């Protein structure tokens, strides 16, 4: 090995050792907790509380990078608690009958390049009333959570990167979306509901809607349990869709590009549509006046509640459906490559092939 190369390698090793030692000493001084080193952490930040006595009907939140939770206030006033740091603070005010909470980025210099942001315990908003008109929240990076009973006219939640958890919320128009994170809605009521996740799962539990419930997930699963609505539309890009105890007055439409569809005790008054790109479809005690289930490549199996006029076709598989009965609705089943086997609840399977 050439002398120059050897010297360079020795210098490199020296730099690694020296750098490692410097980092070790500084970490040791901070108790081996990197958050302590960059005093933007919870322990290093100041817990601030803003008390608001004014009344308002609307809420508007614009948060850059923080998680936020909504609670009921224990008194007649609004309280907002958050961790203020050297570079981040909030502007809280009531203006035009609207409570406005906005992130303030106090930094504006070259130093900002080296600003480290760690997830704090998040901010908490305590609301004195149960009912408000409009609620809009834009969160850049952080989760949004509301688990206590509130009633709004319109709710518009837009999260860049973080999860959304809603519970006991009533809204005429509920629109919640996150680009990257899961969405959970539990015991919520409303007229129109739209829940969207770019890359996360969406789960609904005990949902009642007078109108349309619309759920979209680009790359996550969609689950809906105990949902009652006029119409339900569930779309998953590359995840499965599971429903249980879902009742639609009118249409029930489900679509997945590359995931299976599993329906249990799911009933629609009119259309019952399920389309799967490359996954199987399974039905358990489901029903609809006009059923249409299609899989590009996967089997379609299960049971329906009532008799129908069946039309089953498969590109390369067996087809076994009950005898046609003109007294019921219709059921069209098609798969590109897979078997079809459908029977009616409480009735013996027929051997009639379509």
């Amino acid at each position, binding site marked *: 090995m050439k002398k120059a190369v050897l010297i360079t*390698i020795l*210098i490199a090793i*020296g730099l690694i050792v*020296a750098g490692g030692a410097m*980092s070790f000493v500084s*970490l040791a*001084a*901070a108790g081996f907790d990197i958050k302590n*080193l960059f005093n933007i952490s919870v322990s290093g930040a100041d817990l601030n509380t803003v008390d608001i006595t004014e009344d308002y009907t609307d809420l508007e939140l614009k948060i850059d990078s923080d998680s936020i939770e909504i609670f009921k206030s224990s008194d007649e006033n609004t309280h907002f608690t958050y961790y203020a740091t050297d570079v981040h603070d909030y502007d809280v005010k009531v203006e035009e009958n609207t409570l406005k909470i906005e992130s303030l980025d106090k930094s504006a210099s070259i130093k900002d390049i*080296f600003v480290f942001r760690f997830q704090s315990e998040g901010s908490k908003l305590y609301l004195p009333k149960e009912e408000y008109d409009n609620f809009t929240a834009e969160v850049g990076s952080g989760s949004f959570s509301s688990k206590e009973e509130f009633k709004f006219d319109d709710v518009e939640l837009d999260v860049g990167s973080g999860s959304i958890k809603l519970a006991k919320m009533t809204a005429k128009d509920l629109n919640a979306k996150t680009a990257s994170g899961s969405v959970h809605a539990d015991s919520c009521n409303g007229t129109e509901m739209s829940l969207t996740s770019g890359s996360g799962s969406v789960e609904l539990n005990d949902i009642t809607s007078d109108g349309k419930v619309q759920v979209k997930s680009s790359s996550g699963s969609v689950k809906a349990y105990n949902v009652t609505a006029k119409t339900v539309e569930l779309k998953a890009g590359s995840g499965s869709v599971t429903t249980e105890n879902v009742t639609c007055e009118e249409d029930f439409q489900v679509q997945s590009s590359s995931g299976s569809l599993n329906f249990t005790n799911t009933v629609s008054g009119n259309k019952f549509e399920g389309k799967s790109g490359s996954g199987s479809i399974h039905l358990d005690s489901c029903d609809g006046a006009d059923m249409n289930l299609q899989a590009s490549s996967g089997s379609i199996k299960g049971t329906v509640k009532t008799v129908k006029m069946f039309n089953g076709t498969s590109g390369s598989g067996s087809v076994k459906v009950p005898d046609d009965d003109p007294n019921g609705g219709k059921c069209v089943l098609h798969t590109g490559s897979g078997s079809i086997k459908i029977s009616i609840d409480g009735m013996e399977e027929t051997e009639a092939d379509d």
Partner: protein
Amino acid sequence: MTKAEFIESLIGSLNGLSEDDIKKSKDYYEEMIDDRMEDGIPEEEAVSGLGTVDEIKDQILEEVPITKIVKERMKPKRALRAWEIVLLIIGAPLWIPITAALIVVALVLYLCFWIIILALYLCDFAVFIWGFGVIIGAFVQQYGFNAGLFMAGCGVASIGIAILLFFGFTKVAQGMIFLSKKMGLGIKRMFVGGKKE
């Protein structure tokens, strides 16, 4: 092995190269054997001292571009007969796409090879630059001395790692180039060959 046997064997093994290239190689090695014999080395010893025919063939092939070899191999040695032309035309929908696909695959593999090497050096450069960036950051950050020391330490260590990685990646690149030469030689051997020693 005598000089005549050696030259005959070498010419046979270069079957597939152009006549010019074969003649050049033949003249070169004939002259080399003659020079050794003039120095008083016995004929068989002068021949064996050059190495085996396969070794010499590999040395010659390394010098000749693959395109030249393929071109020479594909060149018709005689005028095509009518039925051969008809067969070529009829089979064109099959052999043209297959040939085009093979060429594209070869080009893509060749590109991938250099992209991997480029990516390795870019990663190394990124670590190096990041190291300097963090050291600068250590002086302008606002979290105090300990944070600055931590950042400076990370930066210094990164520069050291980048230097070591440079040597490591250079070895990897050398290995890949050696491997590609061997693969190229293997491909050339598929087109060139004949009698062996």
